């Protein structure tokens, strides 16, 4: 991999009072990669995602996106720059239908790509919103109020909304949490496949090593706020320290 990375972090650190939640996180993500982030609870995975997407301001270190310093940027500006995310607890618009959810994701882009005063409901935009639902296999829920949908579908919708603008980097915070064991793989398939079709980089936090090895080409293992290992998935999963501290800690503790 000789191309320049699309997103890099250098020496990221986050302290909450005296507690160090993340330390010396240096990562380089390249276009088109699918990366899994593993680690036990409190290892710093979500803190890392939160810093990259602007929810938390790093105490030290630097984040660059396409060569631009985006450290400390707001979630909104990060999103506009092309970094999107989904959430561990699905963040959707519960009282609206799935189509309306997708439409809002389309319209939200108007603030940068058009004018907020223009007509929001156009046939082209409707078409695009339906297209997004279709890509993620959600078209049958288009007119359903999403609060009533099952947990897994809500998470799919959350990811679909994050993917609306074909972002350069998309970060998925535990996409399969809350989804029943036997549905995890099919759910992952239905979201990762459409995401990988684009040019974008996908990073997802995952506890299930089966899913990690199945979907991620590269894996980063976190332990106590630092990166324990970073490399091709098979190598990282074979790493002794990772087996001892991470996989043991999550799967067999």
């Amino acid at each position, binding site marked *: 991999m000789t191309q320049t990375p699309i997103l890099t972090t250098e020496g990221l650190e986050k302290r909450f009072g005296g507690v160090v939640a993340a330390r010396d996180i240096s990562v380089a993500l390249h276009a088109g990669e699918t990366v899994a982030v593993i680690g036990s609870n409190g290892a710093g995975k979500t803190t890392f995602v939160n810093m990259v997407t602007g*929810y938390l301001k790093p105490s030290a270190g630097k984040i660059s996106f396409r060569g631009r310093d985006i450290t400390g940027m707001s979630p909104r500006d990060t999103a506009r720059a092309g970094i999107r995310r989904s*959430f*561990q*607890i699905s*963040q959707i618009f519960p009282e609206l239908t799935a189509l309306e959810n997708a439409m809002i994701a389309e319209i939200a882009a108007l603030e940068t790509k058009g004018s907020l005063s223009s007509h929001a409901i156009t046939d082209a935009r409707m078409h695009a919103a339906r297209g997004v639902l279709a890509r993620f296999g959600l078209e049958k829920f288009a007119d359903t109020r999403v609060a009533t949908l099952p947990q897994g579908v809500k998470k799919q919708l959350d990811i679909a909304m994050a993917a609306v603008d074909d972002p350069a980097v998309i970060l998925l915070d535990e996409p399969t949490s809350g989804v029943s064991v036997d549905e995890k793989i099919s759910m992952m398939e239905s979201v990762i496949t459409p995401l990988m079709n684009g040019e974008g980089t996908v990073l997802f936090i995952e506890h299930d090593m089966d899913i990690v090895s199945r979907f991620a080409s590269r894996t980063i293992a976190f332990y106590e706020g630092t990166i324990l290992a970073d490399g091709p998935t098979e190598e990282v999963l074979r790493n002794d320290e990772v087996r001892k501290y991470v996989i043991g800690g999550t799967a067999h503790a």
Partner: protein
Amino acid sequence: MLKFTAIMLDGLNYSAWLFLVAVGLTLIYGVMRILNIAHGAFYAIGAYVCASTLGLYYGAGLPEALAFLAMGLVALIAGVVLGLAVERGVLRFLYGKDEVLMVLVTYALFLILGDAVKLIWGVESYFVYQPYAYFGFVEIGGLPYQVYDLLMVVLAVVLGVALWFWLERSRMGRMTTAVVADREISAAMGINVKRIFATTFAIGTFFAVVGGAVTAPKIAVTPGIGVEVIILAFAVVVIGGLGSIPGAAIGAVFAGYARALSVHLAPEFELFAIYAVMAAVLAVRPHGLFAKVSGRKI
């Protein structure tokens, strides 16, 4: 110096009164998430009930010293009956509705109770000035001050501490605190949320009624006395942080001293001193001084 004494005393006195009328509002909001506009009507009913029953009491020539006992008893009965009637009769059908809708429900109740008061007591003033005069006055630094007003401060402190003890120490109170923290988990743990709601509403109403009852001897009890009270109580509660009882105390002190200061130093600003304090506090601390801001989990 005299002016300073006056400001201290007047501020304290007004703070005590504000606390009495506001604490029930904040308790009900904290537990039930109902911003109760009918609180003003409860205050007015407390004043009317006190004035008319004490009128009968004095008319019957009963001992003056025991009038205060009668006053407390009447306030307790009126508060519980009224609170339970409104909670059981109307509010319980509406739990889980939008907060704003509940504001309007209580506004409708306020209108209905206001006219009900008029139909029961008429529009002419009621007076029960005997308790106010009973203790006479003392001179504090050369300023004559009614002992009754000073006792009101004592009452506010006693009732405030009693409420705090009930919430912190009693079984029922701790269950109430649990409901405030998380209604669903509390219900899942087997706490009878319905009973907590009814009790809380009755206690909150009792405070409003007491506020009206102890004010009645100082004023002419007339239609419309509840209107100003709601807004003042709202202001106090919002300054302190909705749902916080220490907040209500601090909010009352802020608002009470703001008023006393403006009366003595800049009387022309008295009309909006309290709103100005409220706007200023909210501009700096959007959720009031004592609010527990629960950040949303993502």
